């Protein structure tokens, strides 16, 4: 109802403005004043308004800074994050300065040099010294920004050392799964062809390969039988034939795993975690990021970490958390605070709610928690595939949070 009123107000406002316009139009025609002749009064009013606007803009800015300071991202909770924030603050210092000075000069000059019939503008076509100054000074400032920025970037994107804990962040519409590498700190191999209801990440295990080959062979045989025994419309025949081809290619791919000399047993101690995942404080964590369907992005703002999850490739991001969840709760004086992982690349209808909590804790607590998680179990028997959940339904339930 309230909103309806609002809409009504808008409509009325528009009508009102149109009426006002008509009156204006008539009045200016009556007076025979030329539209292009800007009267000294109008010039003066607009000049003053420009300066007033500038003051308002600056005040608006400062109001934001004061009022919303506490609502911005809190201190960085990772080693590199502190460096990013330092660089950011340096950039801010420059940007604020230039913002105030340049906007001031613009509005101030506009008002100060407003039209005066008794004066002539200063005919100044160019001035090499001035132009050189404002080419060189920005260049120097930018050089500093570039060098500092690139050094920070290089440090952040360095290949992680062997001591980094490897965790996979696996994305699909519309949730995240974390996979821990287990004792060997090596993630088991995975491939999308291996995905089943029980093996949502498509982790490859020797048993899984056999089961998958059987499943695919089964499907091919059944479909062939259907083609042979049933009378089907042409389009359906074509579809089924396509399907057989596709399953055949997938089978070939899975057979290749069998031939490869990779050690699929490294998967056996992997642990799969949903809902929330834990990381130890002050230890580097190397996130291996993957996607099953469309592009997602793993965004962990408190740690100043972000990396896209791209189907068909592995991406990674490494950071060292420095503040435990408990300490952060104290710092922020908010007992309900949680670090979170969000999706930051539009991925469909429930993109806005694709999150997972992150718990940073001491190493002992982390080890204890991890030992309570079940290890990855290879699928025994293939059953008829069940989709885990309908995307639409996923969106509404709060399973992930």
């Amino acid at each position, binding site marked *: 109802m309230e909103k309806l009123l609002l809409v009504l107000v808008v409509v009325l406002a528009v009508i009102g403005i149109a009426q006002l316009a008509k009156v204006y139009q008539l009045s200016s025609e009556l007076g025979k004043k*030329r539209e292009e002749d800007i009267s000294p009064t109008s010039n003066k009013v*607009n000049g003053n308004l420009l300066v007033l606007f500038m003051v308002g803009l600056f005040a608006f800015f400062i109001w934001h800074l004061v009022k919303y300071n506490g609502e911005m991202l809190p201190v960085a909770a990772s080693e590199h994050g502190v460096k990013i924030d330092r660089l950011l603050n340096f950039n801010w210092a420059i940007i604020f300065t230039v913002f105030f000075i340049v906007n001031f000069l613009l509005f101030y000059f506009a008002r100060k040099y407003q039209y005066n019939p008794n004066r002539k503008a200063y*005919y100044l076509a160019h001035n090499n010294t001035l132009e050189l100054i404002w*080419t060189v000074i920005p260049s120097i400032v930018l050089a500093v920004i570039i060098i500092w920025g*690139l050094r920070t970037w290089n440090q952040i994107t360095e290949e992680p050392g062997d001591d980094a804990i490897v965790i996979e962040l696996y994305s699909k519409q519309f949730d995240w799964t974390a996979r821990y590498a287990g004792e060997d700190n090596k993630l088991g191999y995975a491939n999308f062809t291996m995905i089943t209801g029980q093996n949502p990440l498509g982790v490859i295990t020797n048993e899984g390969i056999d089961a998958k080959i059987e499943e695919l062979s089964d499907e091919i045989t059944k479909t062939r039988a259907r083609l042979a025994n049933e009378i089907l419309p042409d389009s359906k025949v074509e579809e089924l034939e396509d399907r057989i081809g596709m399953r055949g290619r997938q089978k070939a791919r899975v057979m290749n795993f069998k031939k490869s000399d990779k050690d699929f047993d490294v998967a056996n101690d992997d642990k799969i975690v949903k809902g929330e995942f834990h990381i130890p404080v002050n230890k580097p964590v190397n996130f291996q990021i993957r996607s099953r369907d469309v592009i997602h992005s793993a*965004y962990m703002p408190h740690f100043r970490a972000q990396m896209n999850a791209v189907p068909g*490739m592995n991406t990674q991001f490494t950071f060292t958390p420095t503040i435990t969840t408990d300490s952060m709760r104290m710092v922020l004086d908010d007992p309900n605070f949680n670090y979170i992982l969000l999706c930051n690349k539009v991925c469909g209808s429930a993109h806005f709610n694709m999150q997972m909590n992150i718990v940073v804790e001491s190493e002992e607590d982390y080890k204890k928690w991890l030992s309570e998680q079940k290890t990855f179990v290879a699928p025994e028997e293939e059953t008829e595939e069940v989709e885990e959940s309908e995307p639409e339904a996923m969106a509404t339930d709060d399973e992930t949070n």
Partner: protein
Amino acid sequence: MSATAESHEHAHAHHHEKESFVSKYIFSQDHKMISKQFLVTAVFMGIIAMMLSIFFRLQLAWPGESFEILNFFLGDKWAPDGVLDRNMYLSLVTLHGTIMVFFVLTGGLSGTFSNLLIPLQIGARDMASGMLNMLSYWFFFVSSVIMVASLFVETGAAGGGWTIYPPLSALPQAMPSSGLGMTLWLISMAIFIASSLLGSLNYIVTILNLRTKGMKMTRLPLTIWAFFITAILGVLSFPVLFAAVLLLIMDRSMGTSFYLSDIYIGSEALDPVGGSPILYEHLFWFLGHPEVYIVLLPALGITSEIIATNARKPIFGYRAMIGSILAIGFLSFIVWGHHMFLSGMNPFLGSVFVFTTLLIAIPSAVKAFNYITTIWKGNVIFTPGMLFSIGLVSTFVTGGLTGIILADSALDITIHDTYFVVAHFHIVMGLSAIFGMFAGVYHWFPKMFGRMMNTKLGYAHFWLTIIGGYGVFFPMHFVGMAGAPRRYYQYTDYAMFDGVADLNVLITGFAIMAAAAQGIFLFNFFYSAFKGQRAVQNPWKSNTLEWTTPVEHIHGNWEGALPEVHRWPYDYSKDGWDEDFVPQTVPLRSDEEEH
């Protein structure tokens, strides 16, 4: 050209013996008429895109609340009980962005002003090819119609964002609007690209070949320089988008796998392996970044002209301005990777793009300082066009500065794809470029329609728009610094964004105000086109050639011979002359230096 001497009645005249209504108003090959067609179409597209933004802004300010108006416009399917559907939300955002960037600020801005001003300011009778020019408009029109029609598709208009990254945009299983809606989007864009190429080629050829006697490249108004480089950018980059769109169409319907690999969706492993979504990102942004300058450069060119005219002072550093347009044009081709720092691309490649991107700040800074120096010690007349130009400089500076942060890959990690980015690109495109467009309309309205727009309404429009504009987009920086991602249907599922929820209400409030203020403009525009005060030949006392043509449009632009040019266009307030302007057609005095 014998028909040229014939003067034609203006827009409200109904008949003419020689020319039928159709060939004069519809399939016209006259650049002035085509320019008006582009402008009016763009105005309609702008209204639609603005309405879409208000629809989704309501949801962002008051998530999950019911609005009659949404149900009224979107129906029960997309706004049951007045609550915006979450798929529709994404469709609205996508179409809003697409229409604003391509249809309003590319087709609308270049189409209108390149067409109007290139022949008039270089002293040509028309574009090199009137036929191509007409086709360019009609392709634009058809693509506009298709794009708008896609809003009415059963499964929804394209919803993957204006960047339509695959696989989301390639798979209808991923999102219902990736079905027919996306197909229409792709078809519309393919036609749009054709339109843009036809236009751009024509602009380039015309500028190179049809300049009148004495109009050296170094005597061209900066508007023409800006349109020229813009057209070159378009010709070099739009074909790449065309290729990207084509490959996407093939992935969608012919089973190829340029962009697709290792996908499991809808309980099934798909066939494609070996493609890469990153390839699409490279192709898209190879256009996407030059595109923002395709949008911005014409606005900067228009502003250069208007500021010089209304400050009654030469544009400061004419050659530096040309140099910076060239530098920006060149650099804009080697910075596209700054949209992809976190795409999974090699981080070293990222470093290269940081470097090239930050270099663009230098020519941009030169432009900003030169505008301000032009105003310094000028004799400034605040016409509505001038106010919008000043607004452009302010927003260009404000928006450009935050670009420094986004260009820095290390900093981008925190704010990539958050509202900070939305704030940044709206301040440069949504405000600066739009202000340039408004400035151009107020300034050249008398040339287009032979009538004046109402100045007082122009003031009201300017003040409400700049207040509303900053009011909408300034707070978005802070929403972004709180970590709020873009393209989210609502933020209520996160405690960490509760603190900025009231900013979202503030933003929507300003947005409604700014949108209402455009009502003033629309009224002024259409009313003045028919009933406005009749214009004099050179209302702003300007130097450029377009003001030497008769107020009433005629084919061939000039009666009799083409004008001859003797000087650059910026001799305002030159010593030794009584008037404070010296048109380009006035010969140099024997003792006079050019500048």
